[in-house]
């Protein structure tokens, strides 16, 4: 009797084991793969840390929060207020940040040389309304402009925050042009400086708008010498040729921060992922698959980071080559392509247009100061500005040569030759933020234009 019972138990054990074995072989195989991928990830992370680069956003958050005088607080508050302050009926023209900004778009287009001079009759009323209805926001932003900035703060909804900052940039742009048109030159300069400084709250790779209105100020008003000097100093202080590189490295820290939480389920307070190996079961979210993709992205990120540390213009040349090389990277169907994300962010980081715009603006202010001292005469070339108005002529990040300058009967241009490397005389300038709707030719130069007979 006992022997029969033992026989049945053993038979059951054997049958169960035979059924379980294929499943366990599969699970164990995935666990081996997971372990190998995790070791690869560990090595990548160790390499990042060995270079002294961040793998979490924690230090950045701590830096932003632990400073009471951080301009970030006021930028955040003003941005949120601007979103909440879409005054009254948003369909009424001139009552939202966007519609207010749009009222001055013809002026911007005219100054860039892409449209004829618009009628400017009602801009004074628009400016008055703007100053009244957005008073609190301007007050916050202007005070923030005088404070140091320690980086983006933690928490909050990043997308709403960026939307708020966009509103601020539009409002400041409208205000600067409004003051310039009204002839209040020094107020226009103060507004332009506020506008230049608000960009600190945006990551360098996201500064795709021409947010400071130096061409408007110089074309439409006549600031004092002291105001021009302040503007030139602000431009020099905010110019950051390596901001994009740091931004790219910080963006990777953000990605990893998110990976710990979402992919590896490392929750605050518990530094180990969940113990049950559900992530080893075959699925699209299977951990070794995800880790493999993350390691691929991190390797691309490291290669891009190396390039991003090279000096201009090598950075741009090597960067565009690398992005092209990675353009055909494939990933598994239906999965996020981490390498494509890295390449996309990298391309944003090595874009030279914002740097060109900053430097060209700084040169234009120096030209303006030269005109003051020389009975409104334009300098024959940029060398005439050195050393009295400029310590040296800023370089074109696309060529490594000094930026170009050309005087015309009604305007002058300060420009880069653009991505095609050909000097087209600055006759057609690409906007700082080209979009699909722009009709500028791809080979256009890049820079700013100052009208000289409108003041």
């Amino acid at each position, binding site marked *: 009797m006992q022997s029969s019972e033992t026989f049945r138990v053993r038979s059951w054990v054997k049958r169960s084991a035979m059924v379980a074995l294929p499943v366990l072989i599969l699970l164990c195989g995935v*666990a081996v793969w997971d372990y190998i991928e995790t070791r690869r990830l560990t090595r990548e992370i160790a390499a990042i840390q060995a270079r002294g680069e961040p793998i979490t956003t924690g230090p950045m958050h701590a830096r932003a929060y632990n400073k009471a005088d951080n301009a970030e607080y006021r930028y955040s508050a003003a941005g949120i207020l601007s979103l909440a302050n879409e005054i009254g009926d948003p369909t009424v023209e001139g009552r939202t940040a966007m519609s207010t900004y749009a009222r001055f778009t013809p002026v911007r287009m005219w100054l860039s040389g892409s449209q004829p001079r618009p009628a400017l009759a009602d801009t004074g009323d628009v400016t008055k309304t703007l100053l009244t209805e957005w008073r609190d926001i301007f007050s916050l932003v202007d005070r923030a402009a005088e404070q140091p900035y320690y980086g983006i703060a933690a928490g909050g909804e990043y997308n709403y925050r960026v939307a708020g900052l966009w509103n601020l940039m539009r409002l400041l742009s409208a205000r600067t042009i409004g003051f310039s048109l009204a002839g209040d030159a020094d107020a226009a300069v103060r507004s332009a400086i506020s506008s230049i400084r608000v960009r600190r709250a945006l990551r360098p790779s996201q500064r795709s708008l021409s947010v400071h209105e130096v061409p408007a100020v110089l074309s439409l008003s006549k600031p004092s010498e002291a105001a021009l000097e302040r503007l030139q100093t602000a431009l020099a202080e905010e110019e950051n040729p390596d901001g994009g590189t740091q931004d790219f490295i910080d963006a990777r820290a953000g990605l990893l921060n998110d990976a710990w*939480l979402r992919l590896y389920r490392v929750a605050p307070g518990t530094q180990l992922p969940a113990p049950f190996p559900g992530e080893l079961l075959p699925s699209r979210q299977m951990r070794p698959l995800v880790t493999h993709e993350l390691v691929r992205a991190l390797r691309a990120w490291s290669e891009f980071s190396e390039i991003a540390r090279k000096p201009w213009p090598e950075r741009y040349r090597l960067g565009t080559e690398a992005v092209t090389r990675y353009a055909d990277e494939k990933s598994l169907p239906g999965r996020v392509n981490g390498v494509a994300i890295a390449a996309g962010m990298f391309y*944003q980081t090595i874009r030279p247009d914002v740097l060109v715009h900053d430097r060209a603006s700084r040169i234009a202010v120096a030209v303006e100061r030269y005109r003051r001292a020389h009975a409104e005469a334009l300098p024959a070339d940029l060398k005439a500005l050195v050393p009295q108005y400029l310590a040296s002529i800023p370089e074109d990040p696309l060529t490594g040569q000094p930026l170009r300058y050309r005087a015309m009967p009604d305007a002058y241009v300060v420009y880069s030759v653009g991505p095609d490397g050909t000097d087209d005389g600055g006759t057609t300038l690409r906007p700082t933020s080209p979009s699909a709707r722009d009709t500028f030719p791809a080979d256009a130069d890049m820079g700013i234009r100052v009208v000289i007979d409108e003041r």
Partner: protein
Amino acid sequence: MDDEKVHELLGRYRPVRPPAGLRARALADPMRVPRSWPWAAAAAALLAATVGLHVAANRAIGRIAPPAAMAAEEALAAAMGGDDEAREAAQLIAGEKTFRAWLSGVDDQAWTIEDELNAVK
């Protein structure tokens, strides 16, 4: 039917002998018949290897995935005054954010200005 008929009927039949192999089977080593332990041992070894590797991988991740969220939480507490009450509030805020992020699966940190533009278009 009387007793004689019964005896006669029984006399027609004789019990058959057991099958020839029955004795050998009955006397064979009972341990050799089911032989389940190699299967069970293999399954146990695989299970142990799976769990072991998983734990090792988790520990490796634990070593490289440090206190990101905690740092943010501490920074938030510092911004709110840095006292015990602020720390408690920051813990709640960070926890809620983590939970909401986990629920939604949306990566709002990676949302860029270009995304904003595309959304507007």
